[in-house]
């Protein structure tokens, strides 16, 4: 086996708002963009890492999901307890300043965590937690 981590998925609520966040604020490139309306699937990722992508897609569209389950998922997205992702940056403080300056919702300013890493956190427009940790 020679596996790579190719794509991870985060839900969006307003595709344009999510694209604006990942492209214009985080600086990712948009690789594919299919569908229309709220039914859009968009892949984004860092320019220098073409083999790893985040797929931004509509939540709870599997036809096997019931109305109650769909309601629960969208409620959890709204209250901020559903999707999250951990990104890395070798210039955490500068990254934090730039993302904060964009008007993104700050959850945590950069701090040294007791378990030995320095990180900060934001919300994306769909309520997903975007945590960024410092890497060498």
């Amino acid at each position, binding site marked *: 086996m020679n596996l790579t981590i190719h794509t991870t998925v985060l839900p969006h609520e307003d595709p344009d708002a999510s694209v604006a966040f990942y492209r214009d604020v985080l600086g990712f490139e948009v690789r594919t963009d299919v569908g229309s309306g709220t039914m859009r699937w968009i892949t984004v990722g860092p320019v220098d890492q073409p083999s790893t992508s985040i797929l931004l897609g509509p939540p709870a569209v599997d*036809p096997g999901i019931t109305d109650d389950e769909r309601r629960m998922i969208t409620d959890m997205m709204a209250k901020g307890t559903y999707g999250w992702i951990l990104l890395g940056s070798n210039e955490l403080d500068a990254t934090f300043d730039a993302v904060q300056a964009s008007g993104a919702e700050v959850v945590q300013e950069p701090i040294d965590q007791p378990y030995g890493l320095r990180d900060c956190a934001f919300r994306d427009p769909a309520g997903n937690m975007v945590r960024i940790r410092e890497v060498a």
Partner: protein
Amino acid sequence: MVRGSISAMTSPATGRSTVHSAEASRRRDLALLRRVRDRMDREYAQPLDVEALALGVNMSAGHLSREFKRAYGESPYSYLMTRRIERAMALLRRGDLSVTDVCFEVGYQSLGTFSTRFAELVGMSPSSYRQAAREMQGVPTCVVKQVSKPIRNGEAQAGDPHLA
């Protein structure tokens, strides 16, 4: 087919669209509660109170407390206290600050309130915890993180030290 989408709303006269509007409105309220919770995570060291938090999202303090508890299972006051104690535990484990320094660092104005709340959540006084943490040096951090997390919604029992 557009499933579960707010954009599928049609005339306000139909029952289905009313359901959708109610859901959209509930999600907007939940997003406001999320902002309140995120603000407590971000500004826990500031002198925040429920009135100030409610004002920030144009709700009454009573409404915010009720809705927050319904969404997250605890009141905003309890969430803020737990958040402060959690940070205090981390700072006490670090060992370079006194209990008094930690108390003010995490947003408490009074050492008495801090110590009482700390003991309720952790099951021991801040100074005992600081001492116990010193004895934990060398234990893997993932284990420390697990055993040293404050208990939400359930006060620790007296005489039940998590670091024994």
